[in-house]
């Protein structure tokens, strides 16, 4: 019999990776390893991707929608888990439609990941990346 915490962690398989919310995610770890497979199921790695955030404009006080992608992943599905200070490549579809092309982002020390072991998931704040000249 599992306790509530274990059940909550197990439920992440539905809330973050299930067909209602799950979006394909590809990662490249600092050691160069590509992480594209769910360690629990062997299926392609999925996570919850929120593309926009509502912010308050500090000058006018108005609400504004900012393109600020945040990816939430189940920790146990990852063979490696991003740590603060590390640089990872993250690829996500440009929008949550089937067949959408992938775009590249990075996570860097500018905004470290959030989420610990007790929550069972990790939240990644993506930064746009461009090809150096």
């Amino acid at each position, binding site marked *: 019999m599992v306790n509530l915490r274990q059940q909550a962690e197990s439920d992440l398989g539905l809330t973050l990776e299930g067909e209602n919310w799950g979006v394909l995610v590809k990662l490249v770890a600092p050691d160069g390893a590509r992480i594209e497979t769910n360690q629990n199921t062997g299926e392609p790695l999925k996570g919850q991707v929120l593309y926009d955030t509502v912010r308050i404009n500090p000058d006018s006080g108005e609400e504004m929608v900012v393109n600020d992608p945040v990816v939430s992943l189940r920790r146990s599905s990852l063979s490696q888990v991003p740590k603060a200070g590390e640089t990872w490549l993250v690829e996500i579809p440009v929008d949550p439609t089937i067949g959408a092309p992938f775009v590249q*982002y*990075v996570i*860097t020390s500018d905004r470290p990941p959030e989420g610990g072991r007790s929550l069972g998931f990790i939240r990644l704040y993506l930064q*746009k990346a*461009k*090809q*150096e000249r």
Partner: protein
Amino acid sequence: MMNFRKIKREIVNILNANAKGCFTVIGAQKQVKSAEEVEDFKRSVQVFYGSGDFDESSGYSGSKDHNISFKLDLTLSKQAEGDISSLIDINANAVVREASLSSFRNASDLADDSFDEFVELVFQILMNPVNKDLNLGVGVIGKRWINNVNKDQPIPQGEVILLTGTIDFKVKTIEEITGEVLTTLATNIDTTIDIPDDDVEQTGVIVDIGG
């Protein structure tokens, strides 16, 4: 037109003439700044009259010393940069990808470098001896100098890092008290209401704005 308005106009003109595609110049204080609008070489400098003080000892006519502080708000944004093509190349091995990731530059580092370069550009343009009189002829500018530079904290704005700061540009000039006011329209505005069968026509009012 008072000198401070002419000086502000010339600051904008001088910066525009010397920008050479490295930044953009806005001659007003713009409220909303989108991070995408100021990315890379679209970084912007907003020029506006910040404050001024006048010498109280002079009389009610003639000229007055005007000590002006112009604000130059610098705004820019940056993305992270690195060798993405190696990272997404399916033929690349882990060693190559590791090297690409380790050489990635944070957006905040790039924004900091870009800001410092921006300050240097603006400083060198405005303090160039060639621009000593700010194109206004001898005698208008008593003195000009960049008083200080402030750099704000970098802000994650969506997918990029936004960095702002201010240059305080001081100018001393003399303003003449001429009593000149804005020109008004010397026109009658007739608001009489023409009511049929009203022979008296005393409804309404005539407004004479002329001097």
